[in-house]
């Protein structure tokens, strides 16, 4: 992954803060370390994390394209978010290293495909980024464990695996030792990625035991491996010890991940939670109630609420309009009978058109009364409607359906 000496411009819209610069530097240092074994010379590894993002974007575009492959234009389109010169540079490097190749090795080939190996490599890098290789070590140990237990494994293979592991542990321990003697800030930052949990040490020792039981001849290699595991556990403990000593009074809480704290708070039993505070002395509640404060509290007591005063009343007797309305059943019937009689007079039948007059609001009230009269069987009056309808726009009401009020008794 060489940049071939090109100078690159940073994406301009992101202002570079100190934090951002630090985290980018951390990312790059992992990349550099990852590919140090492959680099031609120092400085040949990417120096901007954006370049790795371009590669990742490209690979996912290839995955989506399938057997259609991708042309140069399509690749450019997939990476349209990045500046053209960065993209060109990246493509040249990826092609140079064989991560992106022509579909058929012919001149003027327009379609390209991506290399599976490079994609897997990138996945591996991203995972290494997260925990500095701890989980890789877990996987590696689990795989090696399976390998050495496999009856097909030869002694030579087992020896090789023990040697490799011993070397990895030794280097890991060395890095921790260096950190432990360095600044406390760097140790705090890096140590949790590097130090081994008891589980890694236990697994490694299990693997060591398996190899030694199966091939007792390998005892010399196994001694080396054992020494490396111990050195690593010791370095982990020493790094943790230095942090514990320099921690202040809450600072080390940062060294456990948030998830660990959440799991603890959600799953720990009441007794386990309570045990944390065993042996701490706290004050019993002992507030001071000064006599003056007690007297003040009594003075400020909410007073009994006074009874609501009634509104003032007039001194003169005033019965009000109550009683002026006759609400009895017969009163309504009498009124309706009066209405009907006043319309009929002496006659036994009158045409409605003659009696309602031209004032619609009062005609309306009258019609309502008459309908009520009609609907009361005990009253001896009926309305009889004919089919006739006369329309006269100049008159009020303009639409008139004709009918008669009749006396039935």
């Amino acid at each position: 992954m060489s940049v071939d000496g090109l100078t690159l411009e940073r994406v301009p819209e992101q202002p570079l803060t100190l934090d951002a610069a630090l985290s980018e530097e951390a990312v790059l240092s992992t990349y550099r370390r990852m590919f140090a074994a492959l680099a031609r010379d120092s400085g040949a590894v990417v120096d901007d994390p954006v370049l790795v993002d371009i590669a990742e974007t490209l690979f996912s575009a290839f995955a989506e394209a399938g057997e259609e492959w991708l042309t140069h234009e399509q690749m450019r389109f997939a990476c349209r978010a990045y500046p053209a010169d960065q993209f060109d540079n990246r493509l040249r490097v990826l092609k140079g290293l064989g991560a992106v190749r022509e579909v058929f090795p012919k001149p003027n080939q327009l379609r390209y495909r991506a290399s599976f190996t490079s994609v897997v490599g990138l996945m591996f890098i991203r995972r290494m980024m997260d925990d500095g290789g701890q989980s890789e070590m877990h996987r590696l140990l689990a795989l090696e464990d399976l390998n050495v237990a496999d009856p097909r494994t030869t002694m030579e293979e087992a020896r090789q695996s023990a040697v490799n592991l011993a070397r990895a542990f030794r280097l890991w321990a060395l890095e921790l030792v260096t950190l432990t003697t360095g600044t406390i800030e760097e140790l705090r930052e890096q140590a949790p990625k590097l130090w081994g949990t008891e589980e890694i040490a236990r697994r490694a020792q299990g693997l060591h035991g398996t190899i030694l039981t199966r091939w007792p001849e390998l005892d010399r290699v196994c001694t080396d491996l054992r020494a490396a595991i111990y050195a690593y556990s010791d370095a982990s403990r020493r790094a943790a010890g230095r942090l514990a000593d320099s921690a202040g009074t809450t600072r080390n809480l940062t060294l456990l991940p948030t998830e660990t704290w959440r799991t603890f708070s959600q799953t720990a039993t009441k007794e386990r939670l309570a045990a944390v505070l065993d042996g701490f002395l706290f004050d019993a509640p002992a507030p001071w109630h000064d006599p003056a404060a007690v007297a003040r509290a009594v003075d400020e007591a909410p007073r009994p609420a006074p009874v609501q005063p009634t509104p003032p009343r007039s001194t003169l007797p005033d019965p009000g309009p109550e009683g002026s309305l006759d609400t009895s059943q017969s009163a309504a019937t009498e009124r309706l009978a009066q209405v009907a009689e006043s319309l009929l007079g002496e006659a036994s039948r009158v045409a409605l058109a003659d009696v309602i007059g031209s004032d619609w609001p009062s005609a309306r009230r009258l019609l309502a009364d008459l309908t009520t009269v009609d609907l009361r069987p005990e009253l001896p009056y009926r309305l009889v409607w004919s089919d006739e309808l006369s329309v006269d726009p100049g008159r009020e009401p303009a639409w008139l359906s004709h009918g008669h009020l009749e006396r039935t008794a």
Partner: protein
Amino acid sequence: MKPSALAHARARSCGPLPLGPGAPAPAGMTRLTRADSTGQALPAWPDGATPSLLEEYQVPPVAVERSGETRRVLATVLKCCWTDLSVDPWPGVPAPVELVLDTYRALIGRTDDLMRNWAVGALRRLHDSAWVAVHDGLVSLGPRCALWPVESHAQLQELVRRIPEPDRAELTVVADADIVAAAEPAPGGGMRAETGAAEFDDLLGGYDERRRAELVAAYMAVEHAAEPVQEARFAALRDPALRHTLAEMLARRGRVLVQHRERWTSGYDDGCAPALEPHGPAAEGWALGVSERAVLTLVLVHSVAIPRAEGLLPEDSWLSPHPTPVEELRRHTQVPIGELESALRVLRHAGLLTQVKAGEEAGGYVPGPQFHRLTPAARRRLQEELILAAGPHTPLAAAVRARRSAP
């Protein structure tokens, strides 16, 4: 550490100290003797000071939960129990709870159930802090009432006269006197408070009147203020020589000065906890139960450890502006809901938790002002205990264990 210093530490952490028959009170304590010559001991303050002294320096004392209501109920208890105003209020005579509640009702003029619940809650808080003793349906004045200075008795008498008598003659089925007589065959006789010898005279004697007053003021401030007090406000904290004497005074009570930049408070000497430990949680007196400690740990995890791990808490302190939501405690922990509410109440009352209100639903609890009083060693130990509990298999826990097992 001296036994008297330990006794003071115990009295501060568990409430009034029980004393066997004839056993003398430790130095610097007032002995409250019962008829059978057993008794209780309570720390007395130098030169007749009380925590009211803090008001003169405008330093807020430890907050009292629902202070108005609590003090009105205390006044009511005083009214019911202090029947003979010609003698000291403590011990007084026991009174039935119902009489106290009726008197309280007459005082505030409310008769609803809510009022009754509030009054019962206040009685419980007063009982927990040894201001009253509620036992078998009877209420009597608690040991702390014996600490009211004699000069203030006139004010209390005047207060008692002002509180109205309850109107309850025809309601009582059993006469109050019979209830009291049935519960306690020999009421109150022979109980007396004996003030202990002046404890700090050899330390304070060499100082003139003004310096002596400054020392006492600083002593009261670091011991009883809610928060650490400003060094600049107290001469005895500014001046290294006076501060040294102050530290000696505190040491006699099993206490040490705790510094937070330019502010000071006091805390338990680190030697106290292990020395008191063999006695276990005090059989008598106040102690945090399992669920209270569990809830307190949960709040420490949510308000301190998690914000710390996320880099949200810059200060190296056990206090935190990040409240633990009550919902989180209710839904996502192994603490039964029924125990949660009462645990929160106890912790709040003791100043171990502070309730933070924010809107209708938000808000929750943060570690309370007592966490100011942890010494650096105690704070470090708290961190280690949390790490040991939450991540027992991490190298960090291994390092903690290794250091502890080292000679």
